[in-house]
């Protein structure tokens, strides 16, 4: 059985419908009306132990809600969740021993206490043996550099320090699953790199299962092997990074800078290469095609033979393009074709 299993998982928030002003409030008091906001709509998701899955989608797509359902913070409106064989909401305490979660925009630590004290309390809450705790502190000091601010109250930490502190706190009890909701939001490049390196290590060496949400494309390519795209509460796509590239990111663009271009229709030269689109941009010939359907060397050879090429550039659509198209609601799953 998979580590995380969601079947037809739904979550609708109830939001009070209240006209503005005093009369609206009074009317609401007498006759409360609510509007259901569907944040997660019949989600089917299965994550195996040891997978690092990236969850992307525009703001309000339902990513955080999904994480809260999987961690047991929220109760599903309908559908089922099983995490390590348990219902995370009904068996909240048992589930909590095996998982950890961080929310990028909100600390899990007590603001008034020094970080070291918070960590020691967590050690006692999870009954972590002293030796393993010390080992954990050493690892966190080495990779996250938390030793520099162990004695500072959490309220005094910078965002970068706080995020590292949160991660150190989340891992005190050596969880099997680590949920991360926008772990790199607002961080500078150096801290992001450090965090990603740590996550990679946790994933590859300790086999930690990591579901994470992000808007940062580098998080996806650096840490994850699988991408789940959601929009407006629904699952749009679920597959490995390689599958995503092969299915949605197949366009390749070749640009040839030509000396004394004649700007003649390039269709003649490129005949026989397969379906390509070619056009002139000033002195540059731009050829775009599906990299799985058309062989780049064939295109290049023909252009080089026919023209005096002085420079040459190749660009592939990446995960970034795919995700950008999702965010702009321009990704048409039907049109892209191919099997997932």
């Amino acid at each position, binding site marked *: 059985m998979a580590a995380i299993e969601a079947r037809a998982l739904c979550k609708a928030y109830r939001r009070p419908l209240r006209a503005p002003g005093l009369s609206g409030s009074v009317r609401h008091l007498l006759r409360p009306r609510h509007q259901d906001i569907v944040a997660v709509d019949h989600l089917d998701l299965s994550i195996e132990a040891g997978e690092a899955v990236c969850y992307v989608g525009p703001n309000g797509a339902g990513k955080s809600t999904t994480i809260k359902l999987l961690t047991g913070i929220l109760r599903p409106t309908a559908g089922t969740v099983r995490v390590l064989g348990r219902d995370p909401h009904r068996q909240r*305490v048992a589930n909590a021993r095996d998982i950890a979660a961080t929310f990028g925009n909100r600390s899990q630590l007590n603001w008034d206490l020094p970080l070291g004290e918070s960590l020691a309390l967590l050690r*006692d809450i999870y*009954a972590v043996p002293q030796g393993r705790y010390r080992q954990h502190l050493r690892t966190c000091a080495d990779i996250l550099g938390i030793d520099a601010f162990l004695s500072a109250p959490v309220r005094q930490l910078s965002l970068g320090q706080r995020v590292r502190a949160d991660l150190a706190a989340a891992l005190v009890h050596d969880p099997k699953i680590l949920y991360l909701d926008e772990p790199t939001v607002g961080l500078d490049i150096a801290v992001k790199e450090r965090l990603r390196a740590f996550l990679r290590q946790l994933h590859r060496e300790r086999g930690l299962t990591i579901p994470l949400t992000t808007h940062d494309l580098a998080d996806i390519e650096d840490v994850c092997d699988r991408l789940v795209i959601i929009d407006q509460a629904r699952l749009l796509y679920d597959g490995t990074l390689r599958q995503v590239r092969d299915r949605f990111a197949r366009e390749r663009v070749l640009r040839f800078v030509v000396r004394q271009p004649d700007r003649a229709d390039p269709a003649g030269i490129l005949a026989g290469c397969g379906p390509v689109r070619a056009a002139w941009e000033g002195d540059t010939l731009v050829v775009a095609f599906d990299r799985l359907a058309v062989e780049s060397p064939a295109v290049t050879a023909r252009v080089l033979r026919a023209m005096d090429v002085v420079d040459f550039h190749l660009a592939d659509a990446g995960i970034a393009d795919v995700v950008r198209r999702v965010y702009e609601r321009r990704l048409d799953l039907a049109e892209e074709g191919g099997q997932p």
Partner: protein
Amino acid sequence: MGVDADRRIHGPRPYALRVLWLYGRMLGQHALARLSYETDFLLTIGASALTQVLGLIFLGVVFSRIPSVRGWTFWQAALLYGLLLEVRGLAAAFGEGAWSIGGAVARGELDRLLLRPLPVLVQLYGGGLGWSAIADLGLGAAILAVAGPHVAIVWSFGTVAALCVALPSGAMVYWSAMLAANSIAFWTVGARGTVAFLLHGVSELAKFPLPVYPRLLAGVLTWCLPFAFLSFYPARALVAGPDLAVWLSPLAGLGSLLCAWLVWRAGLARYEGTGS
């Protein structure tokens, strides 16, 4: 550091004991953090002491005009007043967590507590002590010490036993009232603490002997919002010997606790956090 030190796990192992130990440990950490904001701390206690002194002056004024109210002498009333401060102070000292429910719901901070393998209430109440209760407890003790010798207390085994059940029960009533009232934040996020403040105000009625109030109100204070069990019934047991009401006070205490727990559970089930 040997292997034994490495395998060492702090605290007791059995779950119930461990939860209790962790509760104490959280309170200890909180106390240390709080004490480091010294002026803040002294201000809280000072302000609370001042409120109580004002209340006492009021009591003195009333009784200087009328030496006895409905059969209660000034010193008997003072004894009751002192008892209220002790019982309510104790409940408030360990009931501070209830006041953080409103903010935690509004800001979605229960998320954090729901991620830990400990009952949410233990974490909430472990999050702080009611420091202002120190002033109440001190003042209450002083009043009891002064008023005690002036009152002919019926000391017997029965009286002592009655106090042993009545005082904790009274504290339970107040503690539960604050939990239930603050849990209303799950339904009305905006009005956080309002109902609890109101109920606390109602508990002020227990500073005076029940017979001074109209029958209906006295009934409410016994059967609906049983604040009479905080001070009146224990004080009457001291003055006139234990009676049925004082023996039934555990019913009031446990009943309140049950109601509060049901309200809390129903509220928590509605918790949806905040958007992010």
